[in-house]
């Protein structure tokens, strides 16, 4: 009996300890960043340009670039992902080889390392699609699309986040009860009318959740844009799809590894990291909140 009690007590304290360990890591990381970074995050920092070889000034171009990146990425990725998910849940025969192949592809895509997407973007979008466009559209030798830009970076990011969108939209669609679909069909609605008027409106919040999760995933990735569009430093904001852009994650990376004076940028590094973290956390929390709302509505 005593043996059992000792075993029981030690297992429960071991599990509690490892749980506490996780909490402690989060607390140390967050605490460190908040303490070191918060004093640098000022209005001028959020709205200004980097100056003095990026040892002074703000990060507005990087915030703007990140924003633009995820917006273009969503405009391209969310519709494609949503339509794929609609096909998979509503139209495809669940056991057909084709549907299985697509699901297998989605899962594989989800497991591919981000840097591979970056290389794919470089090889496919820039060197193949972009160069071909230049050859077709511009006088020989001129370069416009065959080099890194925000369009190719966004497309690469859209492909990276596609599995996130597909899986969450599929879940949202599946959460619409069969009874509602049957009610609609029994009234003489076609399958398309049922999807359009009943299934999609009732899974809208779930789809939004998917979109937000994709955006927060995209905002946190650097590898895919490394070769496809992010710039070290730009004096002006991008104003065309063929322009390069600055991005928060990439900005942190170059300031901590490529800056001529890493020590001098320490405060900016912390502050930029804080901004990026707050941004992705805010997106994740809004996704969780939305999902909670959906579940509550469905429980009626």
């Amino acid at each position: 009996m005593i043996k059992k009690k000792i075993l029981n007590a030690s297992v429960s304290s071991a599990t509690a300890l490892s749980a506490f360990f996780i909490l402690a890591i989060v607390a140390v990381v967050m605490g460190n960043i908040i303490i070191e970074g918060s004093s640098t995050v000022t209005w001028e920092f959020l709205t200004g340009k980097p100056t003095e070889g990026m040892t002074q000034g703000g990060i507005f171009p990087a915030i703007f670039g990140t924003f633009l990146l995820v917006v273009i990425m969503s405009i391209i990725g969310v519709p494609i992902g949503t339509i794929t998910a609609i096909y998979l849940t509503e139209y495809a025969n669940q056991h057909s080889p084709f549907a299985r192949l697509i699901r297998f592809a989605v899962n594989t895509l989800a497991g591919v390392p981000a840097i591979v997407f970056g290389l794919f973007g470089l090889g496919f979008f820039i060197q193949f699609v972009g160069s071909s466009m230049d050859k077709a559209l511009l006088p020989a030798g001129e370069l416009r699309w065959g080099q890194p830009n925000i369009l190719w970076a966004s497309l690469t990011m859209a492909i990276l986040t596609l599995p996130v969108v597909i899986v969450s939209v599929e879940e949202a669609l599946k959460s619409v009860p069969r009874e509602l679909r049957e009610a609609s069909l029994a009234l003489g609605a076609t399958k398309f009318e049922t999807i359009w008027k009943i299934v999609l409106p009732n899974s809208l919040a779930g789809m939004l959740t998917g979109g937000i999760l994709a955006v927060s995933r995209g905002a946190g990735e650097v590898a895919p844009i490394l070769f496809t569009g992010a710039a070290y430093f730009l004096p002006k904001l991008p104003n065309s799809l063929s322009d390069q852009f600055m991005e928060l994650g990439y900005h942190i990376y170059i300031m901590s590894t490529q800056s001529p004076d890493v020590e001098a940028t320490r405060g900016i590094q912390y502050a930029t990291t804080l901004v990026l973290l707050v941004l992705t956390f805010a997106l994740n929390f809004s996704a969780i909140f939305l999902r909670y709302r959906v579940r509550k509505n469905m429980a009626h």
Partner: protein
Amino acid sequence: MNELKTKIRVENFNFYYDKKHALKNISMNVPEHRVTALIGPSGCGKSTFLRSLNRMNDLIEHTRCDGTVVVDNVNIYDEAIDVVELRKKVGMIFQRSNPFPKSIYDNVAYGPRINNIKEKKQLDEIVERSLIRAALWDEVKDDLSKSGLALSGGQQQRLCIARAVAVDPEILLMDEPASALDPLATTKIEELIHELKEKYTIVIVTHNMQQAARVSDFTAFFYMGEQIEFDETKKIFTMPGKKQTEDYITGRFG
């Protein structure tokens, strides 16, 4: 029985779930403007049969059927049949009330809107008429914008009936429409069924023998996928022709 017009004529109908033979050689003439009840123990095929009458079983993968189901002289399993048109003509009420998460008005107007009725005045009329027909109008007329989900269980089921009659069907299929309701709400639905048969031909699946006896004019008894007996309800419940029917309605098995 001869003077009654047949609305649905079923001949040698078989239905299979994958390899399971769920309905065996069913033949039945469902009379117009009468209530026909389908009774039998769980899994006997009565719901499957009901769902065959508006081809809702088409939605289930790996099923097939043969034989004929003729509604108004048209075989509904004919390849040329438009299932969507069929389902407008043959409405369905489900076991669990399933209003859309929309307002009462939008629930009832859903069917007409699909049929391209867009004019507000016309929709208003249809909604009012349908809700009156489903005996719900007086309870909800002051707040048609309220969510259908905010209604009580019995009211929700009547809303579903209103939604079904809004597309002007000729036949109403009811799959245990009162099984989830309290006795008072059940009584209301039963009274309603009695009124509805003047305009519609009704086929109802029920677990409740008293209910079948109360609401129906004809009764079919199903057992293990076979139709054991089909006759006037009076006759089925007073002097059934088959021993199995008698055993079932007297509660000896079920």
